[in-house]
């Protein structure tokens, strides 16, 4: 069982929603589509699921071209950001609806619905109307409808986006085991990098109608192929700025320069863009070889376990992330310490040219 997009693209009128893109998904792991709102995640899901036809290209499922095949015949399930349930059917009937349409025998329906409801802790609510459920329960009901029919592919389009923080965490923890061992291809769209890392599996980065990178989630995080991929997969946002390489030295501005490390030592002289994640810029010197950067603190976010500071360096805003609580004064000039070995070096086209030595 393989689900494959072959050079698909999608245009609606004059707007291009997706540029020619290929993707090959296999069962057994979560496949995460990570990208900002309007980046094309939902368009990809609509084409993967068959709700929409691609303008060009083909969709292959199980070695068969299913490009024009309706979603019903593809045997898939979709869970939306909105809690979509049939409004005047109770929870039992909602979960049973795909089985009824498929013509499954009555006794079997009852068993399968109860099993799915138990997994999603909906047992006591089987005979309530969706309107009487909380948001989390409504979404559980939608999830139960997705797993009850034993689909070949299950699509989850930001299913937790409309839930409050606590419910989101709770349901997110249950998701991987919910789909484990079902042999279905699971596709999960999200706009939150942390969610991708938490769920693991494979991640495709989606940006402006293109998939910029696809691979094992941690590998994609550690080794971005270009500046855009690094930006899409970083929270808080990765620091991006221009530097110049001359000889062995990399220069940020008149005051800040450092010796090239790792593969960046082999780069030709010239201008580059660097990307460095916030947690490699700290307010205190905790090891050798760090580069001092003087910045003016503008915004701070202290969460208890983490301290984030936004500071100005020669016209650019940088972000630093440190563990614990660090006292900052807004407006103060503060020395930050950057680890140059954690820098990504991108060339003029935005492609990864070198790294400072360690993975990001």
């Amino acid at each position, binding site marked *: 069982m393989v689900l494959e997009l072959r050079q698909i693209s999608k245009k609606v009128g004059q707007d291009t929603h997706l540029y020619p893109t290929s993707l090959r998904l296999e069962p057994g792991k979560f496949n995460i589509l990570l990208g900002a709102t309007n980046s094309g995640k939902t368009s990809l899901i609509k084409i993967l699921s068959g*709700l929409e036809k691609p303008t060009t290209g083909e969709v292959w499922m199980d070695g068969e071209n299913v490009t024009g095949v309706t979603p*019903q015949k593809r045997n*898939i399930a979709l869970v939306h950001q909105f809690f979509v349930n*049939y409004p005047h059917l109770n929870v039992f009937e909602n979960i049973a*609806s*795909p089985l009824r349409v498929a013509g499954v025998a009555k006794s079997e329906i009852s068993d399968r619905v109860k099993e799915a409801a138990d997994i999603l802790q909906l047992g006591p609510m089987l005979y309530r*109307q969706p309107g009487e459920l909380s948001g989390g329960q409504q979404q559980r009901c939608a999830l139960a409808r997705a797993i009850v029919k034993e689909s070949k592919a299950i699509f989850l389009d930001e299913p937790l986006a409309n839930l409050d923080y606590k419910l989101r965490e709770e349901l997110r923890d249950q998701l991987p085991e919910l789909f484990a061992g079902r042999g279905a291809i699971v596709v999960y769209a999200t706009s939150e990098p942390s969610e991708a890392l938490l769920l693991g599996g494979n991640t495709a980065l989606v940006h402006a109608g293109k998939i910029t990178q696809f691979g094992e989630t941690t590998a994609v995080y550690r080794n971005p192929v270009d500046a855009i991929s690094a930006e899409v997969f970083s929270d808080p946002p990765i620091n991006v700025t221009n530097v110049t390489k001359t000889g062995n030295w990399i220069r940020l501005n008149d005051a800040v320069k450092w010796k090239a490390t790792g593969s960046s030592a082999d780069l030709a002289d010239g201008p580059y863009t660097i990307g460095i994640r916030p947690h490699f810029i700290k307010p205190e010197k905790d090891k050798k070889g760090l580069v001092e950067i003087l910045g003016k603190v503008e915004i701070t976010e202290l969460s208890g376990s983490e301290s984030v500071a936004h500071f100005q360096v020669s016209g650019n805003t940088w972000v630093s992330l440190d563990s614990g609580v660090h006292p900052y004064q807004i407006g103060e000039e503060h020395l930050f310490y950057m680890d140059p070995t954690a820098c990504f070096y991108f060339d003029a086209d935005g492609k990864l040219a070198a790294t400072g030595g360690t993975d990001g």
Partner: protein
Amino acid sequence: MKTINQKGWFFVAPVVILVAFNALIPLMTVVNYSVQETFGNNLFLWQGLDWFQNLLRSDRFYGALGRQALFTSTILLIEIPLGVAIALAMPRKGIWVPVCLVLMSLPLLIPWNVVGAMWNIFTLPDIGLAGYFLNSVLGINYDMTQDPFAAWTTIIIMDVWHWTSLVVLLSYAGIISIPDPYYQAAKIDGASGWAVFWFIQLPKMKRVLTIAVLLRFMDSFNIYTEPFVLTGGGPGNATTLLSIDLVKTALGQFDLGPAAAMSLIYFAVTLLVSWIFYSYMTKDEE
């Protein structure tokens, strides 16, 4: 000791005054008339509940009430399904949406007496376009001034023409507010067009349809101007609906007492039916 601030009354006063002048005082005048015999020269005679008793024993009242019930149920049975069907057939995006909406609103903008006059002239057998066509071209014997059946047909068609748009617009608002994911879910389940209507669109339209039925019930149950201008209640008493009968009693015969009693019963029936219907439709939405 507890201090009591009487200034709070000033804040409630505007509403009290408004409701008093708007509803309470006019209603009480009617109650006042309904228990007395009114003569000229400001002479009144106490009657108690006589008028109510007479009315509830009179065939004339039940005749008018029956015709009213028949009229209202007929137009509801036509306008609600027809309105929903038209709303479903209307485009949901594109340049035709405003065109359809404007076309639909047009009948609603025409004053009631103009509608009555329009349909009167339109259906007159000798000079009206429809009347002449039916009689002289198709050879169907149609005369709403003589034939009760023709009069009823005309009144109902007129009301359907005038008010179906309201149902269409309300249903349309209900339909376009259904989020796309519902249709996608139905598509993935492989639901038929009929199932989409029955399991998604109709339940999602329940609230607006409740309002539509209520509005059409109240308006049609109280209808006066259009049938009055069109048929004047005739031929005979064939189209004398409740409000027409009421005006005949009050102004034609100057029987203020019976007319007031009739108004109150009329009002109570409208209120009761609306309340029962609304409570039934919203009983699961606590």
